[in-house]
């Protein structure tokens, strides 16, 4: 029948008409608005309310941001400039304080002629963590990652290179001992890998160090821990804590799952104790209590003390996050590993942990982000973290007394950059590791 009009039909359409443009209300922005913001009375009310809040916020804060002054020598001068430009009573941000003191926010009281050292360590940090984060990069770069902690310590704290080199030699000797003995007995090899470096450090390092120092005195200016501050301190504590707490957390999580009574008990006690105590309490222990236990005059570096406790703290949380990942693995995975005849460590390394860690990524990264932000709590033990201590010190200079919000905005923005970066990386990692089993 098609194409052959019936004689009785008055009109038969021969061509399809082109589609009409949808009415204005059902396309483009109006459609989106109707569907998303004004789909019902309740939604409309909420939208208007939201707009009102937004207006309040913007109208309140926008002038403050827009009237910001970057060039001034003191808060009084800032106020004067704002009053001149925008009339009496106008409010405005005095960003000049950031301009004048940004080095303190970044480095604390690190000697200014040595700023290149933390900067170099910071740049090298990216080189060191890149091969860990992105598997596309050449695996040879991992050697630098291994060496990086020592390089960074030498760059940041300075002093003679030989003690740092001795530490590296100790690790190398341990690795060598493991290699040599691994074929005979893995237990013996592990023991040797621990004992050899310890013996080397306790008995041989001192004499070798003094000989080398007298022959080739290769040293850079030392910087004491007290002069560390700002984001330098936050990143040192955060990165050190992250790097050390992940392995420790994995060990604790496995320990908690272990069948061995002692190991299990110790792990459970450690995790529950640390999780049950506030971080500030631990920081006070690090800063104050240890002073009473240690012989008077012992100089147990304050950054090291704090870093150890921050590490222990976050390791306990990581352990529980990873235990969640271990628990989420189907029983069959463990049984499959057994059926393949893998021993405990091989099963963990090849089958269990890769899956458990993948499941735990969001939790682990959350813990890291939380820990990085918690480094600001060291303000309570008199270290110059960037959020409170540094601004307080800056306010102690009369020129900037009364500056309040600007440092918070600045420091908050930098923290956001770091933490947002970490969060995006974890999402990338999840996407990359995604295996759709279903």
């Amino acid at each position, binding site marked *: 029948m098609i194409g052959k009009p019936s004689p009785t039909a008055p009109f038969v359409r021969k061509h399809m008409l082109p589609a009409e443009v949808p009415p204005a209300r059902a396309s483009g922005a109006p459609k989106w608005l109707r569907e998303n913001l004004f789909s019902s009375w309740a939604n409309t009310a909420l939208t208007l309310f939201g707009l009102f809040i937004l207006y309040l916020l913007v109208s309140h804060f926008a002038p403050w941001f827009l009237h910001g002054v970057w060039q001034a020598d003191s808060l009084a001068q800032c106020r004067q400039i704002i009053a001149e430009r925008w009339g009496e009573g106008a409010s405005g941000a005095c960003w000049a304080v950031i301009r004048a003191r940004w080095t303190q926010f970044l480095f604390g009281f690190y000697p200014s002629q040595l700023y290149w050292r933390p900067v170099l360590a910071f740049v090298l940090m990216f080189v060191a963590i890149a091969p860990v984060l992105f598997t596309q990069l050449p695996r040879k770069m991992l050697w630098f990652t291994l060496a990086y902690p020592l390089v960074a*310590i030498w760059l940041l704290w300075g002093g003679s290179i030989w003690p740092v080199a001795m530490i590296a030699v100790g690790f190398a000797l341990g690795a060598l001992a493991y290699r040599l003995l691994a074929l005979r007995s893995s237990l013996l090899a592990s023991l040797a890998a621990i004992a050899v470096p310890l013996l080397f450090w306790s008995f041989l390092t001192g004499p070798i160090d003094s000989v080398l120092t007298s022959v080739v005195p290769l040293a850079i200016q030392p910087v004491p821990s007290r002069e560390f501050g700002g984001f330098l301190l936050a990143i040192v504590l955060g990165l050190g804590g992250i790097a050390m707490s992940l392995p420790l957390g994995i060990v604790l999580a496995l320990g908690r799952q272990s069948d061995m009574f002692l190991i299990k008990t110790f792990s459970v006690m450690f995790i529950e104790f640390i999780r049950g105590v506030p971080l500030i309490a631990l920081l006070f222990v690090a800063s104050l209590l240890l002073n009473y236990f240690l012989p008077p005059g012992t100089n147990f570096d304050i950054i090291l003390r704090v870093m150890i406790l921050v590490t222990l703290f976050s390791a306990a949380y990581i352990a529980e996050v990873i235990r969640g990942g271990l628990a989420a693995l189907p029983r069959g995975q463990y049984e499959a590993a057994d059926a393949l005849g893998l021993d405990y460590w091989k099963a963990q390394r090849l089958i269990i942990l890769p899956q458990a860690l993948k499941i735990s990524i969001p939790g682990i990264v959350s813990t890291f982000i939380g820990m990085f932000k918690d480094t600001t709590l060291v303000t309570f033990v008199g270290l110059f973290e960037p959020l409170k201590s540094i601004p307080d*010190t800056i306010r102690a200079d009369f020129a900037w007394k009364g500056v309040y919000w600007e440092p918070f905005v600045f420091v908050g923005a930098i923290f956001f950059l770091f933490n947002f970066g970490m969060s995006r990386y974890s999402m990338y990692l999840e996407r990359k590791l995604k295996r759709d089993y279903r």
Partner: protein
Amino acid sequence: MKKTVFFGALAAAGLTAGIASAATLDDVKARGVLNCGVNTGLVGFAAPDANGNWSGFDVALCKAVAAAVFGDPSKVKYVPTTGQTRFTALASGEVDVLVRNTTWTFSRDTDLKMDFAGVNYYDGQGFMVHKDSGITSAKELDGASVCIQTGTTTELNLADYFKANGMSYQPIAIDSNAEGEQQYIAGACDAYTTDASGLAATRAAFADPDNHIILPEIISKEPLGPAVRHGDSQWLDIVKWTLYALIAAEEYGVTSANVEELAKGTENPEVNRLLGVEGGLGAMTGLPNDWAVHAIKAGGNYGEIFAATIGESTPIGLARGLNAQWTQGGLLYAMPFR
């Protein structure tokens, strides 16, 4: 393993400390630097500049002690301490002397095992209110909300004062001066209370200082002074007499400008003894005889230090008041150098 890493690096950095003993002076001399506990930042009293160089009224005393011991006021390591960490820092030997606007009280002197070497600033707690509130006396603060820093003697003084006067108040707890100022400006509290020196500095930094008044009542005694550990009288003597030397120098007109000249000998035997020209006083404390010359040269006498850091010519603009010489109606009274 990491521990060892750090220990190594630190040993390399030459940070190994000597073994502390009763003789603080020997430790300080062996170390080559005086560890001075200061505030993490208090306007006029202790503040680092953009390069980390400390200055202020308390810092000047640290410099004077270092100058007395080493002849060099720059040989000081400033250890910033918070309200919580200051006493343990002293007790544990982390600092040799604590010059951190610390109020001399009975329990701190006895129970906390500190020895106060004297008073370098007589402070007292006051109130600041908005001018348009119409309040002119602390007695009119009944029922007011008061911003108060927690965990300080000011908090206890406030409670005592209102109780003694049969008044009520609503405390608004704050954590730091900066926060207190914000709360006060925002109108969260009717009155802001802290040490009078702090109030003066705070008011001076306001955008509208004329709209705020500091009430005339001073409700507490806050004698702020340097402190050392119990049990080392020699070191206590050194800190105490360095402070007296600065005060006495003002009394006898010895300034940083003329101290070199006067140290060659003067008509006044007291000045001669102070400056080590005669009497050999320095040796009695284990210091060189010209210790006071160096201490005075470091930042000037007490009056010069006061004028340069917190005095009326500075933005903080504190009057001498109680901190004037006893000859001028104040409380400063240096014991005789004999």
